[in-house]
């Protein structure tokens, strides 16, 4: 009888911890997935930006934005994604480096994990260097 009671108390103490661990692992997995996705989108946006003509800030930014938007729209766990690339025209010259920063929220509210986690803001940054031989628009 006493042993049954002891087992019951041990279970009552241990089970909530194990359940919290279970959901914690799932949440960490979803969070890591969202971060990798955002990081990839920002990296591709920066890489895309430096493939446009040199000294074309608006066109370079458009390339980056198109790439970023098209990549994050495939990912339902990322919401309110925004991209900002440098505003210095000198960064868009041949041989110069462009830096882009992305931000978003991990939308736990769209998943069963919403009972534990709220939406979590994340950010990522990436740089890319334009070829020193990249030509201007003809």
């Amino acid at each position, binding site marked *: 009888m006493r042993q049954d009671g002891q087992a019951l108390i*041990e*279970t009552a103490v*241990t*089970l909530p911890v*194990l359940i919290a*661990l*279970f959901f914690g*692992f*799932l949440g960490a*997995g979803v969070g*890591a*997935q969202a971060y*990798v*996705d955002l990081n*990839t*989108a920002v*990296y*591709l946006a920066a*890489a*895309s930006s430096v*493939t*446009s*003509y040199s000294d074309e800030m608006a066109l370079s930014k458009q*390339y980056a934005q*198109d*790439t970023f938007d*098209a*990549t994050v729209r*495939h990912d339902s766990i990322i919401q309110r994604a925004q991209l900002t690339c440098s505003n210095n025209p000198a960064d868009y010259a041949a041989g110069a480096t462009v830096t882009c920063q992305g931000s978003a929220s991990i939308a736990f509210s769209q998943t069963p994990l919403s009972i534990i986690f709220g939406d979590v803001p994340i950010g990522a940054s990436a740089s890319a260097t334009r070829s020193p031989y990249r*030509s201007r628009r*003809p």
Partner: protein
Amino acid sequence: MVVAAFLLVTFAAVSAAFHAIQRAMAETAAAAGVQIAASGSPTNPDKPYLAGAFQPTHDLLQSVMFQTRIDPGPAAQPCPPKDQIGQATLVVCAYPDGALVAETIRGHPNFPIPWITQLLPWDIDVTVEMHEVSYQP
């Protein structure tokens, strides 16, 4: 009961971690492939090199896709839906999307413990896109 719950949590953690590694590598491999696909093709520098996306993607994927077949998808078309892709198979597809080029990796990777894939939906469905590269003078 506590032992069973502990084993379940441990198992969930290990399998979730393995899936996270596989999916992260799929994202990285797709990003590597789409950069090749968005570049100019060897025969015409103004056209994307869609066929070039598969090999770098395959080479990156195979390191973590345990006994999983990695096949090229239909040329210049989106991948088939997941239910048309067999178990332990991933399909890699590169296709044009307006002024952008998209690459999708979709399918059901194998797991070190074979019967896990019948219990848990550890599918992979990753798509990345990149603006076409222009090589005009």
